[in-house]
């Protein structure tokens, strides 16, 4: 037998609203209408704007010592907004990393939870009943397996119209658990959308040092997973890709991979200084691709937006974010018993004693211990 090609494949890249705000009608119009109505685009534009305002304020809070380290989502908003909007709130699960604030919010998580998380308060992770969203995940590249498990539970229970979406960065795809998640989801054949926000950098490590492959999407090939690359700064492309991916997942009970090509316009976190490792020129190039700018231009071209509405939105966003900050700040100081109370459904005696005495020293926990001299009772 001769040598044959036994496998060939390709990867598509989807772009609908390009950086000059040119709209591709062949892809963006269905049944005579844009895939997102003007009202929907206005709504998503507003959500992106509020998300960015939240970032600005979070940055200021950190700089003035009122919040810990915070990772801005700036520049990547269309990924979270478009995909979060395409998933079914209350039915689907969202398993995020930390640059998907808008998706978490679209699925019902009030924004002050996210602030509380970064303010060093576990109550920011105390997801309200009915919000199907796992908390922000700090150990990179490990949480995608949870989405595979969640989707597996849909399958086990025969819940046919449910799907999970999980978000992660380009760097995260280097972790072994990423490949574990891809393998589990594809071999168990469960409905998960893997959404990689490829923002070109993992802190200071550029994509070329992170992986030899020129795309992230091609990693899905090894798992025989349907895949697509999208312009992650294009709200239409992100929405359409995710909507179709969800449909495919649910109908075929399989996972789907989306690579959103994007860029973080801010530092990695408030603890980082991106000027140390990336050029101003590169940053400027991506500034021009800002998802907010092109979405606004699109709306203006359809007479669905103008300067006046923009001013209204900016005022509104400031007010909304001020309220979010107030909400986060007005929560009572946590009590020390919170350190212990959620360790188990029911805490054991050791923990109870530690909680009640705030001591680990055996004599400190029990001053009446035999032999203790009387005068130390109030030590």
């Amino acid at each position, binding site marked *: 037998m001769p040598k044959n090609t036994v496998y060939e494949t390709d990867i598509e890249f989807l772009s609908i609203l390009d950086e000059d705000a040119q709209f591709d009608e062949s892809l963006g119009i269905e049944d005579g209408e844009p895939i997102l109505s003007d009202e929907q685009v206005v709504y998503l534009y507003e959500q992106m704007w509020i998300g960015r305002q939240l970032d600005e304020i979070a940055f200021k809070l950190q700089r003035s010592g009122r919040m810990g380290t915070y990772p801005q989502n700036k520049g990547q908003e269309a990924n979270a907004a478009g995909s979060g909007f395409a998933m079914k709130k209350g039915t689907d699960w969202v398993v995020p990393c930390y640059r998907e604030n808008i998706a978490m919010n679209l699925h019902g998580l009030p924004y002050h939870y996210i602030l509380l998380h970064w303010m060093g*308060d576990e109550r920011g992770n105390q997801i309200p009943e009915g919000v199907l969203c796992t908390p922000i995940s700090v150990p990179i590249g490990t949480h995608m397996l949870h989405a595979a498990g969640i989707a597996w539970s849909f399958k086990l229970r025969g819940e046919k119209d449910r799907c999970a979406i999980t978000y992660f960065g380009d760097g995260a795809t280097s*972790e072994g*658990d990423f490949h574990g998640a891809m393998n589990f989801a594809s071999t168990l054949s469960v409905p998960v959308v893997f959404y990689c926000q490829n923002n070109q950098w993992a802190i200071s*490590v550029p994509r070329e040092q992170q992986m030899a492959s020129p795309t992230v999407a091609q990693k899905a090939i090894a798992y025989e997973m349907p895949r697509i690359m999208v312009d992650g700064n294009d709200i239409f492309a992100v929405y359409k890709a995710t909507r179709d991916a969800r449909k495919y997942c649910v109908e075929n009970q399989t996972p789907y991979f989306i690579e959103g090509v994007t860029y973080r316009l801010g530092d990695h976190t408030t603890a980082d200084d991106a000027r140390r490792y990336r050029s101003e020129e590169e940053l400027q190039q991506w500034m021009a691709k800002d998802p907010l700018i092109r979405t606004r231009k699109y709306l203006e071209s359809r007479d669905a937006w103008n300067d006046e509405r923009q001013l209204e939105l900016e005022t509104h966003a400031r007010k909304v974010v001020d309220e979010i900050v107030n909400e986060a700040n007005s929560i009572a100081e*946590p009590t020390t018993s919170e*350190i212990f109370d959620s360790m188990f459904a029911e805490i054991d005696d050791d923990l109870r004693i530690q909680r009640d005495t705030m001591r*680990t020293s055996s004599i400190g926990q029990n001053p009446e211990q035999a032999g203790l001299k009387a005068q130390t009772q109030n030590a």
Partner: protein
Amino acid sequence: MANLTLVQAINLALVQEMEADESVVLLGEDVGLNGGVFRVTEGLAQRFGDHRVQNTPLDESGILGAAVGLAIAGMKPVPEIQFEGFLGPAYDQIVNHAARFRNRTRGAITIPMTLRVPVGGGIHAPELHSDSPEAIYTHSPGLKIVMPCTPYDAKGLLISAIRDPDPVIFFEPKRVYRAYREEVPEDEYTIPIGQAKVVSEGDDLTVVTWGASVFQCLEALDGLPEDVSVELIDLRTIDPIDTDTIAASVEKTGRCVVVHEAPMTAGLGAEISARVQERCFLHLQAPVQRVTGFDTIMPYYKLELEYMPDANRIGKGIRECLAY
């Protein structure tokens, strides 16, 4: 002599060992141009080239596994894990490979590797950036565990670690990274692994601690009455543990308090307490006290200072033990 922070002293030790020995290579996330997230490797990529200060993919298991391979083949890798909370994915490579090679090959293959890891709480960091997992690795045979807390000790111990023929985990208390400076000799010098340091001498009670807690203990000692004389021991090396120095002290004082940030149960306080009663049973005038973190998840930073033993809690522990 130069007046250096802990970060600078570690950086200096790395520079000098890299200059002295071509086989010393650094690897880890962001250790290159960016100098690591704490800037400990600042300037090293520029000085020694990317090939000796290698930015790696975001894969802790990969970093440690590749370091083991480098070590097998005669290099002296110094991998960095960005925060102790991210040792998890590397656990298998550390415990099941690095720690075991010498023994399971009966000495034919050895792993001269120094794993550098920032450790501990107190810097208002996010989740998983503030833990104290040293006991986990102490419990795993085949690893040496070092945790200096002064710039001087860090330089001397890091040089010893890099020259050591076996795997060493070099924990760097991040709370101390830039907290203060001290005089550090320019010349290379070593501090032997396995030697504790008596920080202050005393007759009434012995405090054993390490890492950033040394400074909390010093503060607690300041708050004690004038007539109380406490001997403070900074272990510096956690494994192998310097039982002789501890025992000599407790034989003199008859009382011992162990302080650590990590949770209490099955923590190193338990090990030290056991050794003290084995060696000093007839000298003891009080039970060994443990003043430690609680048996809980390290809380997020709003409550972290409630979790970590501070001067107040340590002082109480000392007074109770004295009064027993």
